[in-house]
């Protein structure tokens, strides 16, 4: 018999078989998740809204009935967390801000609608950095989300609630959004898998925008296979096992896959994290990949370009609300909105013109290599309240540090997958793999082999007792 706490940490892929054979019921799965939430959510603060238990039990009843009839769908009976900037019909959508504390969408976001149609049970709306504009999930309106591996540390953001819900055994998967790294950063810091797919692979409709041309929707899961499953459901498209750049290769044979390592940009990288990253690269070699050094021309201009676009588009998103409800924004958001007004149109357009050139140069690079390997985040999760991150005598503002190796793939719209790759001082470290547009299939294939080589299993964070002095 599976212990309830073990049940709460199973992958969807493993649960599907147990549900379909009757080895476990949707009610037992829900009980396992709700028990974890009862025990630990007051410490982690990963949800803004939880669906009432009575409604969840009705859905579990229906899921069990469907399973008995052998009519289950891909997610029948699976509890899911939805980031609270995505519309779920009839459930409050705050965007993590007091500005929208009474907003109840009348429709589902298409991505959510597809998860529901696949049988998923929406457990609740996950906490986020206010309007997804930050990397810490320190949220003045709805409270800070805490990292389950050490509650004194940030979860990362902006999809921090989603990451913590999956890592803590509350939800079996979650949705996230990623404008400059907001899926991959919290997934990395909390020890789970996260994918930022190709731009617009998963529809952005029904998602509160941050920056239209940089926003992406993606899955946050416990393993690569689950990330693939959710991507297929939310994009309504089956992933091909072999893609254009790898035709002829066996799914399980990674011999000949060319991995690019842009070492020159790794100047800001914690030495212990670097050690784990090198081990991960050794694993890629063991898998048959060839490792090549590559350079990313004009990398130093990506961040200012991304910032200019985010600030300008971000302020445009909030213009009307800012006029009417400016006092309801946090001080941080007020200032960010003001900065957006000061970005000249010429700077915004310069950034967008550079975007085409940079994206083309990255596409050229992907003729020489199949994937890129990078450390997802250059450090482990910083302490809550820390504004500056220091590595080897160099100091970066936390947002810059957290998004350093992430935002270039929002800029180019290319897919990037983050995978757990060990621990440093009890906190998770991650590997980021990126590919050319529409090559998610290759990322999943390499990611899955990486899990096999690493003998990956879902780890349980040490949430055993009340933290001291932080609640």
């Amino acid at each position: 018999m599976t212990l309830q706490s073990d049940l709460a940490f199973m992958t969807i892929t493993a649960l599907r078989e147990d549900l379909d054979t009757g080895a476990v019921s949707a009610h037992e799965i829900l009980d396992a998740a709700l028990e974890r939430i009862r025990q630990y959510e007051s410490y982690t603060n990963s949800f803004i809204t939880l669906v009432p238990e009575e409604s969840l039990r009705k859905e579990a009843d229906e899921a069990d009935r469907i399973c008995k009839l052998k009519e289950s769908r891909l997610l029948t009976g699976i509890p899911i967390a939805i980031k609270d900037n995505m519309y779920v019909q009839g459930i409050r959508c705050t965007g993590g801000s007091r500005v929208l504390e009474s907003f109840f969408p009348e429709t589902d976001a298409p991505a959510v609608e597809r998860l529901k149609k696949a049988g998923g049970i929406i457990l609740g709306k996950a906490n986020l950095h206010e309007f997804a504009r930050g990397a810490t999930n320190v949220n003045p309106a709805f409270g800070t989300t805490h990292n389950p591996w050490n509650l004194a540390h940030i979860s990362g953001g902006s999809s921090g609630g989603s990451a913590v819900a999956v890592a803590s055994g509350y939800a079996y998967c979650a949705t996230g959004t990623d404008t400059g790294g907001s899926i991959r950063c919290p997934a990395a810091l909390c020890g789970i898998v996260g994918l930022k797919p190709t731009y617009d692979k998963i529809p952005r409709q029904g998602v509160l925008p941050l920056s239209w041309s940089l926003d992406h929707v993606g899955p946050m899961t416990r393993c690569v296979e689950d990330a693939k499953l959710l991507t297929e459901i939310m994009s309504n498209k089956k992933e091909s096992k072999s893609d254009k750049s790898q035709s002829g290769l066996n799914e399980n044979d990674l011999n000949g896959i060319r991995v690019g390592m842009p070492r020159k940009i790794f100047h800001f990288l914690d030495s212990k994290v670097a050690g784990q990253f090198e081990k991960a690269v050794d694993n890629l070699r063991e898998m048959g990949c060839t490792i090549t050094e590559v350079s990313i021309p004009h990398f130093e201009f990506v961040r200012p370009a991304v910032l200019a676009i985010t600030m300008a588009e971000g302020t445009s998103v909030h213009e009307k609300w800012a006029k009417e409800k400016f006092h309801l924004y946090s001080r941080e958001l007020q200032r960010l909105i003001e900065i957006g007004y000061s970005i000249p149109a010429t700077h915004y357009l310069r950034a967008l013109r550079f975007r085409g050139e940079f994206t083309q140069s990255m596409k050229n690079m992907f003729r020489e290599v199949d994937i890129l390997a990078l450390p997802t985040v250059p450090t482990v999760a910083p302490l809550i309240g820390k504004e500056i991150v220091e590595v080897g005598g160099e100091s970066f503002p936390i947002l810059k540090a957290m998004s350093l190796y992430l935002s270039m793939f929002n800029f180019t719209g290319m897919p990037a997958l983050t995978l757990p790759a060990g621990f440093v001082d009890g906190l998770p470290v991650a590997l980021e793999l990126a590919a050319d547009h529409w090559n998610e299939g290759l990322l999943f294939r390499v990611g899955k082999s990486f899990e096999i080589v690493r003998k990956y299993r879902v780890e349980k964070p040490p949430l055993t007792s009340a933290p001291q002095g932080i609640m």
Partner: protein
Amino acid sequence: MNTEVIQESIWEIQKVRINGDDSIKNLESLLSSIFEGLNSLRDQVEIPLEAEPLFDPSKISEAAK
């Protein structure tokens, strides 16, 4: 027209606004990243005149799909 002066003015106004406001301790760094970074981009990277702003990266990817 000296565009640097206009940009400097915008920057100075923002710095005055954020003076003493610790809600974002790194605002000045954020602003300098944008203005200095994009000015260096203009001066150091040759972007062809025909390069149009790219709003939707899936456009460039569709062409190569």
